[in-house]
């Protein structure tokens, strides 16, 4: 029977190119992360894959990638690029937020705010309630919210003083203040009140109810309490409801001695006071 030579009917993969191997047409080799097919038979070591008369590239390699696993190595690492290449930003030692500059330099940073809560707490059945040690040179202005203050007996005046040292209210006769207020009762009757303090040993600005569910709230802005060269002054808004009437108070006070104060003390003119919530915030100096 006659034999018909059809030649190769499919390419033959020959593995990595070797200069010591002879190749024939349709041999396929790999070299330099690319693949080539032989288009002209040649002897061993005579034609490298770069010689276009003998080899045609089947598949070109892409651009070399980067093994980021050698840059970021630890849980929490963040990968970023600087002016020269990929860099690692290791995780922070404590909970922080990622900050980036306009120049593109990332770093970890604590969340910053111009309002900083300096303290909070509650108190019950105390003759006086004092906040202290929260006024510092970091802040000139403070906001204090006293939520739901009430007393052991109703109809008492709510007063405050500045502290000259930890928890010790200043009782010098240096308090100058003025307040006004208004009341509206269940009979739709109203009254207004105007009062003040001149060289007294406390500020008065509101009353306290005797029950917890009759709220008495206060918002205070305190200026320069920690300054030894400026008067400590205050703007206070307060009020609440008691029995058959609701009332409001506004007070402006100044302590006309240049001395540093470390805190504030509240008290009722008689009996104990209860403070369900007090929060103190500092507003950062510029």
């Amino acid at each position, binding site marked *: 029977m006659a034999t018909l030579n059809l030649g190769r009917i499919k390419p033959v993969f020959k593995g990595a190119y070797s200069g010591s191997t002879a190749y024939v047409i349709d041999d396929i080799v790999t070299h330099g992360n690319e693949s080539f097919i032989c288009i002209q038979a040649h002897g061993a070591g005579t034609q490298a894959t770069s010689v276009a008369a003998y080899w045609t590239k089947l598949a070109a390699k892409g651009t070399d990638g980067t093994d980021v696993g050698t840059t970021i190595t630890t849980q929490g690492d963040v990968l970023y690029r600087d002016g020269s290449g990929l860099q690692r930003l290791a995780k922070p030692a404590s909970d922080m937020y990622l900050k980036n500059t306009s120049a593109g330099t990332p770093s970890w940073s604590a969340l910053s705010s111009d309002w900083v809560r300096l*303290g909070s*707490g509650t108190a019950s059945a105390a003759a006086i309630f004092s906040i202290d*040690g929260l006024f510092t040179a970091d802040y000139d202005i403070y906001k204090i919210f006293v939520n739901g203050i009430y007393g052991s007996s109703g109809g008492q005046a709510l007063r405050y003083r500045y502290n000259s040292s930890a*928890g010790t209210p200043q009782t010098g006769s240096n308090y100058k203040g003025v307040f006004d207020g208004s009341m509206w009762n269940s009979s739709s009757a109203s009254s207004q009140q105007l009062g003040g303090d001149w060289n007294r040993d406390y500020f008065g600005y509101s009353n306290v109810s005797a029950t917890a569910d009759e709220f008495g709230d206060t918002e205070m802005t305190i200026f320069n309490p920690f300054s030894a060269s400026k008067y400590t002054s205050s703007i206070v808004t307060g009020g609440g409801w008691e029995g058959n009437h609701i009332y409001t108070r506004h007070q402006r006070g100044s302590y006309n001695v240049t001395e540093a104060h470390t805190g504030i003390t509240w008290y009722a*003119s008689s009996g104990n006071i209860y403070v369900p919530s007090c929060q103190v915030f500092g507003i950062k100096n510029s």
Partner: protein
Amino acid sequence: MRKALMTQNGVEYVDFTPEEVTAREAEEATAEAEKTTEDARVAQEATDKTNGNQKLLDLGLSQAEVDAITK
């Protein structure tokens, strides 16, 4: 008697010293006296208001006219 002292560490209660108790009791007594005086003043003011209103009515003014000039 005790004070509630709130710092960065929270709230702690501290008993008054004997001197603080004495000072507090004296202040409460003063405040009570002031409150009695103030309550009497407010009561007198209310009485004066009622009497004044009545005198104006006695002069022949209507209550609306009295209200118009007094409120």
